């Protein structure tokens, strides 16, 4: 990347203590987010995908300090978010907003939607009096709602309309960066498509940067420039969306993609069925967190011992797997850890020379 990223996250960690007894003795901890690092360029959409409990929502909230991170660094536009004093943080939140998953519980039922949208304007002293009213009406119009709705209450709206209100509320303070936390998963297909298109139009018109959190891989395909796949608190694969969907490198991503039902009865899919459930984040497996469920033909004892680093396996395509060459973990080290299956190219890595040029320009935006 040529210019500095808008948001840069380094080794972010969040663990929740497990307490026992009435004195709250600490009996262990849940590693919700463990050493997560990524950059988001201005105007780009990075998606975090994964199944429930993988830490994607916690990551999004820890970045905005809605949950205090345990460790790590969050730089927003060159400023250290974790070092900000409360007043400073409030100011910074004008530039960093969030859209929540559940449009029902995220709106105050006793506040008219006009008041809900206006709240941010008042707190940040952006508009007052009739100027604020005009601004609220303009925002409603922008998200495709009628301006006269300002005096209505949240229960008068459908799910899709409430999600639009949530978007208007986030947009009110003119943020540069928005965390979209599962914004469409509670919506019906036809309404979901409307909201996805709205989010994309707003991004184009206002040069917004999104961290898009979702579990639905087909929605992510439509939203993202780049995608990070999370599993048990870690990023296990990170690349341009196109590369990830065409050629997933991490065995978990392959299984995840193959599990998505395809709306075409003529397609006979090779499905990789994962055995069992996601282990508990309170006692994650040793070594590679995915190894107990992994279907990689070269899986061996080394996988249970070596924690694979997130490595660049192909241009701008990162994956965490010691059985996927190239890897920094030498065969000798793997043998010491009990490895018997040498890391051969089991996974379909296209020759880098034959690879089509990465169409994503440095700032991550697509034409």
């Amino acid at each position, binding site marked *: 990347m040529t210019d500095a990223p808008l948001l840069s996250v380094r080794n972010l960690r969040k663990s929740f203590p497990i307490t026992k007894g009435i004195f709250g003795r600490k009996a262990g901890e849940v590693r919700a987010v463990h050493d997560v690092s990524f950059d988001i360029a201005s105007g780009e959409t990075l998606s975090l995908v994964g*199944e*429930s409990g993988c830490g994607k929502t916690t990551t999004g909230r820890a970045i905005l300090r809605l949950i205090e991170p345990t460790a790590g660094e969050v730089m927003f536009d060159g400023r250290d978010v974790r070092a900000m004093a409360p007043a400073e943080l409030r100011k910074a939140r004008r530039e960093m907003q969030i859209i929540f998953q559940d449009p029902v519980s995220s709106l105050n039922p006793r506040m008219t939607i006009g008041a809900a949208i206006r709240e941010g304007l008042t707190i940040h002293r952006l508009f007052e009096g009739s100027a604020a009213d005009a601004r609220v009406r303009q925002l409603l*119009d922008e998200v*495709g*709602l*009628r301006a006269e709705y300002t005096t209505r209450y949240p229960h008068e709206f*459908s*799910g*899709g*309309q409430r999600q*639009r209100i949530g978007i208007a509320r986030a947009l009110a303070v003119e943020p540069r960066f928005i965390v979209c936390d599962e914004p469409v998963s509670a919506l*019906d*297909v*036809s*309404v*979901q*498509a*409307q909201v*996805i*298109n709205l989010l*994309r139009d707003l991004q184009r018109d206002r040069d917004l940067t999104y961290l898009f959190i979702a*579990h*639905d*891989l*087909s*929605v992510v*395909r*439509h*939203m*993202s420039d780049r995608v990070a796949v999370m599993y048990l608190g870690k990023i296990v694969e990170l690349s341009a*969306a*196109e590369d990830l*969907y065409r050629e997933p490198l991490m065995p978990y991503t392959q*299984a*995840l*993609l*193959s*599990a*998505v*039902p*395809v*709306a*075409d*009865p*003529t*397609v006979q899919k090779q*499905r990789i*069925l*994962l055995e*069992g*459930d*996601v282990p508990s984040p309170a006692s994650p497996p040793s070594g590679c967190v995915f190894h107990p469920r992994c279907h990689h033909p070269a899986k061996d004892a080394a996988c249970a011992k070596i924690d694979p680093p997130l490595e660049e396996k192909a241009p701008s395509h990162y994956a965490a797997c010691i059985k996927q060459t190239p890897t920094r973990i030498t065969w000798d080290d793997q043998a010491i850890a009990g490895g018997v299956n040498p890391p051969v190219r089991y996974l379909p890595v296209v020759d880098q020379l034959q690879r089509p040029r990465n169409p994503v320009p440095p700032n991550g935006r*697509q034409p």
Partner: protein
Amino acid sequence: MNEPLLSVENLRTYFYTGSAIARSVDGVSFSIGQGETLGIVGESGCGKSVTALSILRLIQQPGRIEAGSRIMFEGKDLVTLDDSAMRHVRGNRISMIFQEPMSALNPVFTVGDQVAEVARVHGTGSRRDAWARAVEMLTLTGIPAPGDRARQYPHQLSGGMRQRVLIAMALMMNPALIIADEPTTALDVTIQAQILDLLTDLQTRLGTSILMITHDLGVIAETASRVVVMYGGEVVEEAEVKQLFADAHHPYTEGLMNAMPQIGAGRERLNVIPGTVPPPTAWPSGCRFRDRCSFAWEMCEKEHPPLYQISAGHTSRCHLAVEPERRADPHLPLVEQVGATL
């Protein structure tokens, strides 16, 4: 075709709320053959879940199955069956798998007890036999260490495991029909794949018929052999699954397919169906989809479309069947013309 296992004829289920009548299911007909999987697909409020509940007569006040509705199952009309006979059908001949595995299980009993209870209620064998059968069913649904799991409580199991327990419960009495109401909606995609696989596998082994209710066309494509599309309390299209995906006739079905994000597609804009589903208390006159349809003309407002026969086994509730040349002439739907933002 030989005698269908279940045939629903002109089912109407209305809810009498204070001021208005919600016609949630309004003249629905379909049938399911032996060993067949029929999919019902539609968005929230289309009446698909109410249809399922009506089949089992689980509709509560102020809801009512209207006179004239018939639900024929194994030679009996379930609408007029007396309560004790209906209890014999429920869980025994027809069983149901619910969407929320957590709320469908009782938190204070072990899962083994709850699965075994089905056999005890239907009065077959001793307590010991019921327990043995429960463990056998848990084994069948692929729960590891079923003997130990049976002694655990619902909160000790993961979402996927709980759904397997519900499936085990549904299989207890070896029913002829299983109604699965959004069985995988609350589950993660890899777990969803496991459960769908399990259902398909069980069906081929046991020959049970399945009524699969879902909003996800992907799930339909992978499990169903025939599909019923519902909108506004009515069946708007019915076809073999391959026929439907290859050649959808109704503009709503088409719109639904185009609005679905596809994993194999690029990053292009999604096509949307403008507007929202109207409330069941006020279906539009004529065609219920006309406000949101880009082909609607005067006839759609005046005449409620019947189910037209498109080809063998393919029906569609759209006047385009009689004036197909209009398909070449899409225009802005009514909700957009009047500037009615959503």
